[in-house]
């Protein structure tokens, strides 16, 4: 096996050595600690900063011209703005535009984190890391959304916000059970948001890695079997395209569900 691979001039430290889960490992780049808490700067932190930095650089350069007739960059920025603005207005109504900055930031950050995670790693130069493939990150984002819903809901509606747990038109004898179920359902929202994004990203990257691994294994087998390697190669190309779609779709789903949950806080009992 080794001799065939070296004959093919394939470096051995490529996918052969790396298992499908290795891409999700977190490495400390700069160890830091705050008391007993480990706050090291990790590869995850690095890629979060890259995503944030890319968003800031893109939008500041796209909006610098402020042209009446937008150029290419400005057009992309305007399309993104309109896309999210329509989503917020559609789900919450005009009143919801006060949440636009939050939803827009969330959408762009998740979209960029997902897309940046799809960049191939270059051995020795960069090691791509998908921050949204970790439930700690997605659960943090989800909890932020739910915290805003709870605080704004009580701030705007007072205790009337609790009507959220009492759907109208339920027979009184069923009410205790329904309220309990609605309460558990509310608690499950951040978890379901977090699980959906994290599971999509994790599954997609594992499938990509496994398919790419098949190529190496089949090439390594040599002879006629090597010719079959074209199929996992085509599969990898197809899955990469699918993952581009998933990267966008999951950012969209996270943002639209954030809007739907914010709508509960803004318009209690109006739906």
């Amino acid at each position: 096996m080794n001799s065939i691979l070296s004959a093919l001039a394939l470096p051995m430290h490529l996918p052969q050595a790396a298992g499908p889960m290795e891409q999700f490992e977190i490495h400390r780049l700069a160890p830091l600690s705050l008391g007993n808490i480990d706050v090291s700067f990790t590869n995850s932190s690095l890629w979060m900063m890259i995503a944030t930095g890319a968003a800031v650089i893109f939008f500041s350069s796209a909006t610098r011209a402020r042209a009446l007739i937008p150029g290419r960059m400005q057009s992309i920025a305007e399309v993104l703005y309109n896309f999210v603005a329509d989503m917020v207005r559609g789900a919450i109504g005009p009143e919801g535009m006060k949440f636009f900055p939050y939803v827009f930031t969330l959408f762009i950050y998740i979209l960029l984190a997902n897309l940046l995670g799809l960049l191939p790693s270059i051995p020795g130069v960069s090691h791509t890391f998908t921050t949204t493939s970790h439930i700690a990150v997605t659960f943090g984002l989800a909890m932020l959304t739910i915290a805003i819903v709870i605080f704004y809901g009580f701030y705007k509606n007072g205790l009337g916000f609790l009507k959220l747990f009492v759907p109208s038109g339920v027979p009184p004898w069923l009410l205790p059970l329904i309220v309990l179920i609605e309460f558990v359902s509310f608690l499950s929202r951040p978890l379901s948001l977090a699980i959906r994004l994290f599971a999509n990203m994790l599954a997609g990257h594992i499938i990509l890695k496994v398919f790419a691994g098949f190529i190496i294994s089949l090439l390594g087998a040599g002879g006629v079997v090597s010719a079959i390697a074209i199929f996992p190669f085509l599969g990898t190309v197809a899955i990469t395209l699918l993952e581009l779609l998933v990267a966008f779709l999951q950012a969209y789903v996270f943002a639209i569900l954030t809007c739907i949950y914010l709508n509960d806080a803004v318009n209690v009992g109006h739906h």
Partner: protein
Amino acid sequence: MTETADMQEPPAKKTGKGHDSSDLEQFSARLDAVRGARAGKEDTGGVRDKAVGAGFRLASELLAAVIVGLALGLGIDAVADSAPFGLLIGLFIGFATGLRNVAVAMKTGNAADNEGESAQTDQS
């Protein structure tokens, strides 16, 4: 759908301009043909992707509710020292909530799809 409808309107307005309008009509006919063919392809792909997305959404709704129910049950067990009963009732409530979440998610998902379709037919 709406885009093709928009494309057909301009030639009708410019009927005074002889061959220009026929060129435009030809072009719009070709454009419609290409768009129609492409729209068909996108639709079949869209249905499959939508199904995968919906599957993930429903699965996460159900899973999250069961986990929350389980955690609440275990929490009550730990506080009230009611060993297996909190867990059992919590799991049951969690599962019921999961089914309720899935039902709501499917209803809202279908409603959104129907709204999109009716909006498209209204404009055409």
